[in-house]
């Protein structure tokens, strides 16, 4: 499931890791940038990973205006409500799940700079 070794997605190398704010949350979140699917986030409780497979089922989709927005959202640096109001990102599908994931990443994200999992972002 998890992409332990890291993959090149949208020009970046991504890994999985711990996201304490996602305790109790399970599912798959598709990530699109500029309308193009680029990755799927697999959430299994506090463990979260980004995988390059964009063909399988997903509970929700987070649609990012550009790569910088995606980076900030996944790093927990961009408030998802602000992103939505400014049309920088939107969630479609199961918005409850998508919102939980985006808010959960704000507490501590494995995709944040200095999260201790290498050169992820």
């Amino acid at each position, binding site marked *: 499931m998890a992409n332990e070794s890291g993959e090149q997605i949208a020009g970046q190398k991504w890994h999985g890791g711990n996201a304490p*704010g996602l*305790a*109790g949350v399970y599912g798959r979140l598709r990530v699109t940038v500029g309308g193009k699917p680029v990755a799927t986030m697999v959430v299994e409780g506090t463990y979260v990973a980004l995988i390059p497979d964009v063909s399988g089922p997903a509970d929700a989709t987070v*649609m990012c*205006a550009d790569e910088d927005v995606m980076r900030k959202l996944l790093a927990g640096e961009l*408030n998802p*409500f*602000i992103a*939505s*109001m*400014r*049309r*920088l990102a*939107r969630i*479609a599908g199961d*918005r*409850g799940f998508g*919102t*939980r994931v985006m*808010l*959960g990443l*704000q*507490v501590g994200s494995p995709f944040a700079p200095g999260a201790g999992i290498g050169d992820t972002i």
Partner: protein
Amino acid sequence: MSLDTVSILDGSTFVVSDRRGDLDATPTENHGLFLEDTRFLSRWVLTVGGIRPKTLSVDEQAYFKVQFFEAVTTGTVYVDSHLSVMRRRCVSGGFEETIEIENHGKEPVDLDVKLDVGSDFADLFEVKDKLAKVGQLYSNVDDGTLTLGYRRDSFVRETVIRSSRKGEVKEDGFLFKVNIPAQSSWSVSFDVVARGRRADIEDLEKPRVSSALQDTSRERNLQEWVAGAPRLIATWDPLIKIYRRSLVDLAALRFETGIAPGALPAAGLPWFMAVFGRDSLLTSFQSLAFVPELTAATLRALAILQARKEDPFRDSEPGKILHEVRLGEMTAFEARPQSPYYGAADATMLWLIMLEEYERWTGDTDIVHELEREARAALAWIDNYGDRDKDGYVEYERRQDTGLDNQCWKDSWDSIAFADGTLAPTPRATCELQGYVYDAKHRCARLAREVWDDPALADKLDKEAEDLKRRFNKDFWIPERGFFALALDGQKRKVDSLTSNIGHLLWSGIADEEKAASCVKHLMSDELFSGWGIRTMASSEGSYNPIGYHVGTVWPHDSSFVAWGLRRYGYKAEAARICRAILEAADLFDGRLPEAFGGYPRTKTSYPVEYPTACSPQAWATGAPLLVLRTLLGLDSDGKHMIIDPAIPEPLGRIELLNIPGAWGRMDAFGRALAAHED
């Protein structure tokens, strides 16, 4: 809302017009088409032959549609008008409007039918506080479609207007050169689409229906909503009207967040058509016996948005339940903190209280399992963050200037004052917050014991609650005045004003019996009981003002909770007296209680005096008659059975409430006033 305005709404979309149907926003007239806390139309003015038609009547057919009947007249009483105008409007992601002009004369007429259109795209906060725009307004006409827009970086909002007839379309409106033969009519329809933050997604997910005016699904939904609620039979006729009005207004205020199934109650029209933790929770409590589905949606949505981290700008702390969510420009650019804002010190306890109340009423233990993690986080917030200085009491103080001064339900700046009128310094530990903590801990102790299988937590919570009660009855009691202090201030001094807050202590059960008895005397005194309800602040206090928002007005929801608290302590007659007063006030407001009304004594006026800027409909005012009914019939649940213990005042006669939903399925309750010799 002003009596001069007409409002229709659907979720967070609403239209406020004058009684002609025109939108003509000015600094003093808050007209407009609003969605997501933004005004999408500020001008929509019809002229026929250069004249603004005169209103004959307004037919508010449903909360989402209205008809205006008008005549084109010069205003003189000696000349009959031969032209009448009918405007039919229905709100739907914007609104649809059909304008029909009838020529009753024997000659044809040539007319200019003109619609002036404009938008200022004001954030609701800008409307309220008269602030200027930062971004650029634009408009364009393309193939007969008028688009009004506003852009500030990536923040884009647009209003798209199409008409059913070809006419002259300019950037400020539509003009039709019309010839109407004798005894004939002419009509045109407009489709006004407000394109908010999710417009592109909604284009794909929810294509616009062709005609909201013809669509009957919302009528059916409303009928089903009313039919699904218990049926009321009452010998006091106004009660039927008040009850139906409450159900319909609650239906109107339903608000789908999109993040959790179902709809929760938005706080009120026009300023508060948004998610508010406290308002949705208290309204859920009031309406639980009637439409329990509102509570489930409220609990789930607020759980998803529960705070996860510390954020001083938003007064956010892990485990806290939100105060407010806003979606307008000022929030988007962080001039305001409502994304979401967590500056409510009571919402977290109220959420826990509702979780237990809902489970006990409906028997739905699944939701208690589902939300166990959030409930534990909320309990942890009380001790880790709510009690800021570890003195054993929850207190509040905003972290930044953009936050709220007062984070209790009386959230205006001057509400927490000493008896001499001096404002109490922060942090403020208001008394009802401690009552809510007491209640929440006892209730969660039951859930821990019976649902979460965690007896150790249950014992801990029960012990903490009892310890709090013991300390509170010592530390907040003012022996020389015989009631509980409104608050402890930042220096731990007792804020000694007499207020309605002591009634909430009865609801929560934290007051010792003998102290409760003294509080009841105060609540029913001329200083607090106006004759129409309980004043927020007693007329004896230094800050008292009968038209002061939280320092003298009567709030129907506040009175309904005081009455419920009186029942809890066995003061049935006193509770019934307040219930009767609230219902009589509702009757004089044509069945719809406003958010608040003046605290003038009933001996002075034969009607409750209006508060100038009260929201109406407002969710917890709408819920007040429902909690009053529950109080009068003494409805409660032991988890499996409904308890009925009526205490009905003489003028209300007999009340029957049929098909009450709960853990028992559906049950009926009856009550009648006892004659003096039966009492």
